[in-house]
């Protein structure tokens, strides 16, 4: 007879640790997950709000937008509109998971299974994370960024720094490399380059230019000879990464401002994979916690009471309201992700003839864990849906597709969950998760450095959808601030 891990809802460190061991045993030996080392931190609700508001990073530079976020979240939380997330997990090595102190013991077990093993495995194995983010280095980099921004505030004043950060944040979504890998200089190199730039500025500083009336600009410092920077000389156009382009080529930015853009751009790049993996990441974590918690229950390690508590919380997490429901606010990534993964398991273990038709490779193969691990490692939301969304799930969710043309007064139902519609619905849903298609495709197409220095941006419209006019003007003002001269944006039909 195995002994219960815990029988009461109160937790203490010994219990958490014992439970962690049991979960780890299942995760590593039964599920054969491959994880970064774990670091589990117990935090209070206020700290959870803190974590939220600095985009879930334990270290972050200071900016008012995080304060705004905090104020908003706190008001919602206090008014009882939103419950706090049970957990926050950070893609770093060691993988840091936060447990909220007011969770019950069952919830702590659930969260550990979810974050410390589910998310952790996904972070370590998914190809996008492996390629694009550096889990070992992120904390160091954030520490550097925080220190650097604070030093800039000290040296150049808060308003100055804030202005640059505001502008950089406005372009965050245009601050990522989508196709080519970002060049990744080492931290020493970053520091070294920054120093050299600052030294150069100091040498080139001329008292004369200080007395110029506002509006007249001193001559731009000649490009700094640096093999890697090629400042302004050899712009590779078109360039999709606006922040990168401005950092390298803006005629007016100072060294510290360029460095600030680089920090924001690096953060944007770090978060870019997460935006493409919402469904899979949450689905993986949810599937893992579901599997582990059930195994714990089957092996008599947790009581029926806590299993029921777990099921209650699990089902509310994977609840998908229908489109006409007041609670509907888009697809719930937990629901879709978990639904698909549970469905894959079903297809592997107990396929129907339909499944054999649709998924001849995996139907009935029995190795559901292997299939899932392969999916977790090699797909992103878009391709995962395109590949694995089954007709059964389309029926379960009762998915249907609408066609929308701006000048029509009505939506047209183009496909529903029937034999003719499955493929269309599946492809359209997959497109919906393609971040590349959902984000406006904006590129730098020209910069007249020798003439009047106008920066030319262009937006290649996808299926004729233009940019939202008001926000466009606001963002362009930010681009102008960074570029220092006129900026034109052209919207082209693709």
């Amino acid at each position, binding site marked *: 007879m195995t002994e219960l891990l815990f029988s009461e809802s109160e937790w203490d460190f010994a219990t958490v640790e014992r439970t962690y061991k049991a979960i780890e045993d299942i995760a590593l030996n039964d599920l054969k997950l491959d994880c970064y080392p774990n670091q589990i931190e117990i935090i209070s609700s206020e700290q959870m709000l803190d974590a939220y508001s*600095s985009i879930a990073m334990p270290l972050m530079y200071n900016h008012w937008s995080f*304060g705004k976020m905090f104020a908003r979240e706190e008001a919602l939380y206090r008014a009882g509109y939103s419950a706090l997330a049970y957990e926050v997990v950070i893609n770093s090595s060691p993988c840091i998971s936060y447990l909220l102190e007011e969770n019950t013991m069952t919830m702590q077990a659930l969260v550990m299974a979810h974050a410390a093993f589910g998310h952790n495995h996904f972070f370590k194995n998914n190809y996008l994370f492996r390629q694009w983010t550096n889990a070992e280095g992120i904390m160091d980099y954030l520490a550097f960024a925080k220190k650097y921004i604070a030093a800039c505030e000290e040296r150049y004043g*808060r308003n100055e720094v804030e202005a640059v950060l505001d502008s950089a944040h406005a372009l965050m979504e245009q601050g990522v490399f989508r196709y080519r890998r970002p060049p990744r200089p080492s931290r020493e190199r970053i520091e070294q380059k920054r120093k050299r730039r600052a030294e150069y500025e100091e040498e080139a500083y001329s008292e004369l230019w200080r007395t110029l009336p506002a509006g007249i600009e001193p001559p731009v410092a000649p490009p700094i000879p640096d093999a890697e920077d090629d400042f302004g000389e050899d712009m590779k156009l078109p360039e999709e990464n606006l922040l990168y382009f401005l950092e390298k080529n803006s005629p007016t930015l100072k060294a510290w401002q360029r460095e600030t853009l680089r920090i924001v751009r690096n953060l944007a790049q770090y978060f870019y994979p997460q935006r493409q993996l919402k469904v899979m990441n949450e689905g993986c974590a949810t599937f893992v916690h579901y599997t582990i918690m059930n195994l714990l229950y089957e092996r008599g390690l947790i009581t029926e009471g806590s299993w029921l508590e777990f099921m209650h919380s699990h089902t509310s997490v994977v609840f998908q309201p229908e489109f006409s429901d007041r609670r509907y606010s888009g697809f719930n990534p937990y629901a879709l992700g978990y639904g698909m993964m549970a469905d894959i398991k079903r297809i592997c273990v107990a396929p129907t003839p339909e499944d054999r038709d649709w998924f001849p490779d995996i139907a009935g193969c029995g190795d559901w864990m292997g299939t899932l691990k392969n999916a977790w490692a090699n797909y992103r939301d878009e391709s995962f849906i395109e590949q694995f969304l089954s007709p059964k799930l389309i029926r379960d969710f009762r998915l249907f597709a*609408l066609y929308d043309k701006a000048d029509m007064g009505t939506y047209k139902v183009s496909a*529903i969950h029937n034999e003719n519609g499955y493929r269309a619905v599946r492809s359209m849903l997959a497109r919906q998760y393609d971040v590349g298609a959902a984000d*406006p495709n904006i590129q730098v197409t020209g910069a007249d450095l020798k003439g009047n220095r106008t920066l030319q941006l262009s937006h290649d419209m996808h*299926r004729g959808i233009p*940019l939202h006019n008001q926000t466009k003007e606001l963002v362009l003002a930010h681009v102008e601030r960074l570029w220092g001269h006129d900026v034109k944006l052209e919207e082209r039909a693709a």
Partner: protein
Amino acid sequence: MTHFVDRRLNPKGKSLANRQRFLRRARTQIREAVQKSLKDSAVADIGKERKIKISTKGTKEPRFRLDPRASGERDFVLPGNKEFSPGDSIEKPKSGGGGGGKDASDSGDGEDDFEFTMTQDEVLDIFFEDLELPNLVRTTLKETPNKQWKRAGITTAGSPTQINLVRTMRNSYGRRLALKRPSLTDISALEAELDAAERTDPVDAMKISALKEELAKAIAKRKWVGFIDPIDVRFNSFTEQPTPTSQAVMFCLMDVSGSMGEREKDLAKRFYMLLHLFLKRRYKKVDVVFIRHTHDAQEVNEQEFFYSRQSGGTIVSTALDKMLEIQRARYATADWNIYAAQASDGYTQSGDARHCVDMLNQLIMPLVQYYAYIEILDEREMEVFASEDSGAELWRAYRTVAEEWSNFATKRIAKPADIFPVFHELFRKAEVKA
């Protein structure tokens, strides 16, 4: 290896820096909201936490967004079909959310007005933002700050009363050990040995002379290695350090004769409260002294001050006398910043006003940081005395004081709504006044 870390004890307020930046950023909106919310509430509630609702103007974070409503075409998938078949048409929702799955994230920024809670301190900071304590700068510069003797370590020179025995003896002991000063026990041991040697038979002359010599040496050494040498002596050192005066006393003077009714007292009370709150923002410690007067002045507690009524004539100068008396007894100017606020209906015994003016000019004004006189009128009187120059005797007399002293202020109020503007005017920043 797994680490469990208990972060709950980490310092709180990690996002404080962000919050401050946010408040600064949204300053204009927040100020409007705070002023509005203050207007709607009782003055006594001012020092409380409150909910503020601000628009997101000024704190917008624009991003490039697609606008599928403008033109173009798209497909999107929704869950929960019940009745639709391919080819059906669905009315588009008029505007705002609902309908499209992606609309929620595409249209606008999802940012409306939002509400959040500001702490008491944050509210008050905004409340007092453009108010400045009158003459604060001047007094902090001019006023000789209070000096205090503070310990400043140990020195080798000083007066005998400041000798630090422990240090001195420690040095002495160390030196005696180092120089091997014979102790009295050593000497008496030698003497005993000598004595014993002399008594033994046969007398060992060699040993005796050796012992004698040794004894003489020891005694001599005791002489030149003193028990306490001047180099051992240490003194406690004190230096004078200026300590800024961080306490204030606020004298509340009020006429409580029959002519001051509940309404008048209530107005006065609100004024005092505001002043008190204001001083509390600036000084660590604020004492309040309540002096009520009729033809005779008394120091009373707050309850009596505001709620008891006395009959009698009105002689304002008695209150000033009382204030001076209390000030001399308890509130030395070196230690206290003195503020006075006087409320009256403007009537005093004839001839007394002149006396008050003399007292103010000669005795009181040199002592106080600020003296505020508010005259509480009813609204009818307010119209009669519309001009600053006309007024009851006390008013006209005090006007002469105000001309002479910039830190003396006179104001008239008739209804609660008048208080804040008055207060604002009294304490507005010096440069605005100039």
